[in-house]
């Protein structure tokens, strides 16, 4: 059994290394005085200085984060509702139809989504900018949330709900005390996937943005014509390290507080 565990860990480390190789590569070259992502010439902090002095870039970073967080949160709420709706629908065909419609945005190439949203927003009369970008990010993140939450709902045994109901719980109690806690991992998974979609999206945002509003991906893509400047590497490095610290910090804080809660509970 112990030998098995060693292999398991070796495998995980291997996958981990592969996932991080390109990122380490980016970080490494962000210190390159040569100005390109090949031929490391010498160590410099020039790119970091350039990034820190660039207010426009920081506005874009803030925009990107705001959009990503808001879109992920709202689409998670919508997506959970959607998953519940699909779960509750009794008719098989109806279920299938809803699921198919749900997945349309996942399969549609970004260009089509972008172009059709652009037409849609002009018809409705929404100004291009923050609102239109937020709305489209919510729109294309909902289906992935549904996909993440639905399996959790289906795993839940119906007897659980019946039992709760027999004990006198009403609909709202069933939802908040039984269903939501059960599907919480799915909800978090959906949230993080939505965040990922939003942070990564270029094509859709490109079509629906305007009036000076921009996100990081759009900025990076449009700078690509002249070759990506290493200040973008430097910026990504900073953002990445910041996220890593945030994630680890959040994890240990929440761990600590939950063990505290747990202990208090046990003492009672």
């Amino acid at each position, binding site marked *: 059994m112990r030998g098995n565990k060693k292999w*398991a*860990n070796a*495998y*995980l480390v291997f*996958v981990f290394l*592969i*996932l*991080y190789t*390109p*990122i380490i590569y980016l970080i490494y070259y962000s210190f390159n005085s040569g100005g390109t*992502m*090949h031929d490391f010439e010498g160590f410099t902090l020039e790119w970091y200085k350039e990034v820190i002095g660039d207010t426009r870039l920081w506005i874009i970073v803030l925009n990107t984060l705001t959009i990503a967080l808001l879109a992920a949160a709202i689409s998670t709420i*919508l997506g959970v*509702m*959607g998953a519940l*709706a699909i779960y*509750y629908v009794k008719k098989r065909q109806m279920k*299938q139809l*809803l699921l*198919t419609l*749900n*997945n*349309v*945005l*996942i*399969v*549609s*190439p970004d*260009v*089509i989504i972008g172009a*059709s949203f652009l*037409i849609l927003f002009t018809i409705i009369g929404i100004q291009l900018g923050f609102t239109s970008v937020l709305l489209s990010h919510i*729109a294309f993140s909902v289906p*992935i949330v549904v*996909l*993440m939450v*639905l*399996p*959790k709902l289906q*795993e839940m045994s119906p007897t659980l709900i019946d039992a709760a109901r027999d004990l006198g719980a*009403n*609909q709202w109690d069933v*939802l908040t005390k039984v269903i939501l806690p059960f599907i919480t991992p*799915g909800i978090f*998974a959906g949230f*993080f*996937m939505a*965040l*990922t979609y939003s*942070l*990564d999206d270029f094509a859709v945002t490109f079509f629906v943005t305007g009036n000076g509003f921009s996100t990081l991906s759009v900025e990076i893509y449009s700078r*690509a014509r002249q070759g990506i400047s290493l200040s*973008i*590497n430097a910026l*990504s490095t900073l953002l*990445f390290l910041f*996220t*890593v610290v945030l*994630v680890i910090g959040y*994890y240990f804080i929440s761990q600590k507080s939950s063990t505290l809660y747990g202990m208090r509970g046990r003492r009672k």
Partner: protein
Amino acid sequence: MSCASARMMVRDPMKNSVRNVYLFPYVIWIGLFVVAPILLILYYSFFDIDGNWTLANYKTFFTPIYLKMAASSVWYAFLITFFSLLVAYPTAYWLTKTKHKQLWLLLMILPTWVNLLLKVYAFLGIFGTYGLANAILETIGIGTKQILFTDFSFVFVSVYIFIPFMILPIFNSLEELNPSLIDAARDLGASAWTTFRRVVFPLTLDGVKAGCQAVFIPSLSLFMITRLIAGNRVITLGTAIEQHFLVTQNWGMGSTIAVFLIIAMAIVVIATGNRK
């Protein structure tokens, strides 16, 4: 929705009204951002490049060139899904066995938050003739190979991109697994492998399905890395749509291909949903 109003609704004999509350915002979303664009696409697919009503686009789709493209899209999507699953399942499985598993899971997802184009550029450097991968091949005595612009690099990078989307749902379904089931199987004398094959895998099938959908469907329409990593040696339907919408301005043909993609997606959803 407030607690009070929900409680009031429960007293109502029509329990369905509560369920409709979930349905309502979701259906609005579907109407606005799914049905409306689908109708637009359908509408455009019946027009030729000069704006005349025609069925020619559909006829064009059934010419060898587009059929070949469709077949190769499906084939690559299949490969990508297969290898993603192959890598992701053991990863998710062993992740659930680690201490701090939630943290490790998060750390596995983190790389996806770095801009895709940047990572792809990094891969261009890593897989290049003088890149890291070839340096490793050189030192272990295999010698420099062309890695960039091959099927291998295309599938590799696609799998790299999609892996988190596969790991997450599988991890979740593994987490839900009741450990006593496994203990029971072991007590009954099943080997580790039998337990896995007979108990663990079937019970996590829903997660696997969700993961496969989240990978297979978007990989049908990959476009950026077909150019960057595969050097246009791989042409998918997504690439063609991109071309028709942005370069040729032949929205009709682009929409027609999109219609077929949507149909393909519907088939996938129905096929993976039926066994339940």
